[in-house]
């Protein structure tokens, strides 16, 4: 179930959302028409130094006051406005998408190595945990999540994503199994830098959630991608793991493989499994994630869900199906299918 798609331009050349819309809709057989979403990096150059908060209000008149007040406590709102939308006959809007450009007050997280992100993290957890009719769906600099219940085309047209230009795009075509009406439920999930789309359903949601929540994160939606976004943030930002090691912690090698590794590597991999046993994801999944500097893709170690990688010039593609890549890049130069557990890491040129 679910189709996922990601594209990155290594030289930060911009792509508008129309191609992504096209690619995602090629995988409509993998969805149920009850959820789709897009996230793009580089879309808010005018506010590049502000954290862009995309928020869904159940009732704008009530919830907005709560969010405004909370944001004022944690920093300064530079600007806020309704996210431009265009009504679609097939979409039933049940919330109001809003965006804030926000400067966190770093002095509220003294002693932190990344105080602004700590403030934004706390803010997101606080608002999303509260019964306040507001849900922050993305919170990074120069990045925004656009998602709703519906087919990919309708969601794209609703948000007019062809009007946005980004150098990394992730997208998700949802096959709903629960809460088809909730707009915050489809992927992508985002926490400041990191955005995640997943095709899968882990068998370790509860264990992973308990682990990540013991570090102060709060999982409010019950979806894998939310936990995965928090896990990646925890492992890379708080625990200082390089991304390749973070992926290995989440999807480790089998013990038999570890036993056959050279000694230093064996020690490292054993240490990762020792330290991060509770963060390890099990069950079927393909995850594509991005931050402003990279796009990554990885699967469960049995590769129970598909992952296809395409390359063409400066573009790197990761998708559930080759057809999605070809929809956007008909003359793609290379198509590969990484082996189970073999991650893909694409970095933007510095």
């Amino acid at each position, binding site marked *: 179930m679910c189709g996922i798609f990601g594209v990155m331009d290594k030289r930060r050349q911009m792509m508008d959302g129309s191609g992504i819309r096209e690619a995602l809709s090629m995988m409509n057989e993998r969805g149920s028409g009850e959820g789709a979403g897009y996230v793009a990096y580089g879309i808010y150059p005018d506010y590049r130094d502000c954290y862009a908060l995309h928020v869904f209000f159940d009732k704008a008149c009530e919830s907005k006051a709560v969010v405004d007040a909370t944001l004022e406590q944690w920093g300064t709102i530079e600007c806020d406005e309704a996210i431009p939308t265009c009504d679609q006959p097939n979409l039933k809007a049940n919330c109001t998408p809003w965006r804030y450009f926000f400067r966190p007050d770093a002095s509220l997280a003294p002693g932190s190595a990344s105080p602004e992100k700590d403030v934004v993290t706390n803010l997101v957890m606080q608002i999303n945990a509260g019964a306040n009719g507001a849900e922050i769906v993305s919170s990074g600099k120069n990045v925004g999540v656009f998602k709703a219940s519906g087919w990919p085309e309708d969601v794209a047209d609703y948000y007019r994503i062809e009007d946005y230009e980004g150098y990394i795009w992730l997208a998700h075509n949802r096959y709903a199994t629960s809460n088809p009406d909730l707009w915050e439920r489809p992927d992508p999930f985002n926490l400041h830098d990191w955005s995640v789309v997943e095709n899968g359903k882990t*068998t370790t*949601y509860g*264990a992973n959630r308990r682990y990540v929540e013991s570090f102060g994160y709060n999982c409010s939606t019950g979806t894998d991608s939310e936990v995965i976004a928090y896990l990646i943030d925890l492992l890379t930002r708080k625990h200082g*793991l390089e991304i390749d090691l973070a992926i290995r912690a989440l999807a480790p090698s089998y013990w038999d493989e570890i036993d056959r590794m050279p000694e230093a590597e064996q020690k490292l991999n*054993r*240490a990762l499994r*020792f330290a991060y*046993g509770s963060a*390890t994801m099990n069950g079927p999944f393909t995850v594509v994630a991005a931050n402003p500097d990279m796009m990554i893709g990885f699967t469960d170690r049995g590769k129970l869900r598909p992952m296809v990688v395409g390359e063409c010039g400066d573009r790197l593609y990761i998708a559930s199906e080759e057809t999605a890549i070809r929809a956007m890049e008909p003359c793609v130069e290379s198509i590969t299918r990484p082996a189970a557990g073999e991650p893909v890491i694409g970095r933007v040129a510095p």
Partner: protein
Amino acid sequence: MSSNFGSMPLRYRISIDREQCMECGRCVENCPYGVFRWDGNRILINSRNCTACHRCVTYCPRDAIMLQEQPCDYRSHPVWTRSVRESIYNQARTGKIILAGMGSVSNLPIIFDHLMLDACQVTTPPTDPLREPVELRTYLGKKPSKLEFRQKPNGDVELSTELTPNLMLETPIMLGHMSYGALSLNAHVAMARAAKETGTYMGTGEGGLHPGLYPYQDRMIVQVASGRFGVNIDYLERGAAIELKLGQGAKPGIGGHLPGEKVSADVSRTRMIPQGSDAISPAPHHDIYGIEDLPQLVNSVKEATEYKKPIFAKIAAVNNNAENVAAVARSGVDAIAIDGFRGGTGAAPRVFRDHVGIPIEVAIATADKELRKQGLRNEVSLIACGSIRESTDVIKAIALGADAVYIATAALAAMGCRVCGNCYQGLCSWGIATQRPDLVARLDPDVASKQVANLIHAWTLEITELMGAAGINSIESLRGNRDRLRGYMLDEGLLEILDVKSVGA
């Protein structure tokens, strides 16, 4: 001293079908309790001595022997039950504390039986353990919570975190602590061989390590209990790990008790106590009067063994279990075994065994939750023990937060034990809980070790299948994964404490 109780109603009645009986006398030879005796060429029965050990039933070649429990009715009464009345008669006659063997006989609901396991259907595929790996390998010991790296001169990054020693188990099932003394040497050797064969470990109990176990010492967890029986540096150095026994589920708050009848010459040498003397270990460790004393003991044992071995602590599950576990987790130990109130024993006062403590299911769940809350979960591994009866108990205990389990009564049963509960008499007809040489000789270590290994192997296979069905291919993904459990007919308060949802949720 006399009493007016006279003959108490029989507990068991043994009868022989005389048509079937061929007077071979095997029952006479096999029963150590004196139920059968020859009278000329006829076998007479004294049912009063029977313990329901089933030895005679097992060895009768004609199936001529039948055992009936409670053949004589009392007037039924919901409050003044048979056991209540019999305890009163017993104590009115003797004026003593009633001792009992094996685990609790309280007829309380068993939480494990009200927890249902999960399986994958359409949204997630099951894993097929016949065709795909399912990892049960378990490491017990302290784990880092975070890893540190350093940059080498050539720019490469290498791990600088040093891992502390862990025990590597091929399956999360260990053989629990039962002492040599309580058990026979043959029983110990059989279990040690089974541990070696199945890639797991076995606890020595607080009875020292007999030289006959030295060949298996790398599979032994040597126990240091409050009596310090059998403890010296040689003992500590031989073990693969060292366990400090602070409490026991069958008798929280009191020490061990080995009746003098079982202290043979060999047991005396191994325990370093006089032959024939009762071995009664103190209730507390007399060097631990507060939690701050525990780290000193942990450190002195670590110093003595040069930090090469994991140190375990075993505690009984009582009301403030979460607090106890968090306190012990800070003492420097590498694993904590929690023993539930249904835990077994060779001998314990009946009132403790049946009334003190809390269930292991609750104890593990609250321990795991509290350790996570306090950021201590990686400091220690958790071992669940006390009435782990079958493979599903193992998997449920792990899903509630344990890393591994100890089994003990189940291992005895695998060697033939019928759970008759008379271990303290020292006359075990199966050669398990006795030191009488002729009885000990009945237990062939080769045969018994194979049976114990078979049990562990069978449970391991079942766990593998259950994990595969749940779409989980490594044991650490099961640990604390309470979302894969559902409570059936458990009350709301208990579900909240277990952090398990109700069926249907």
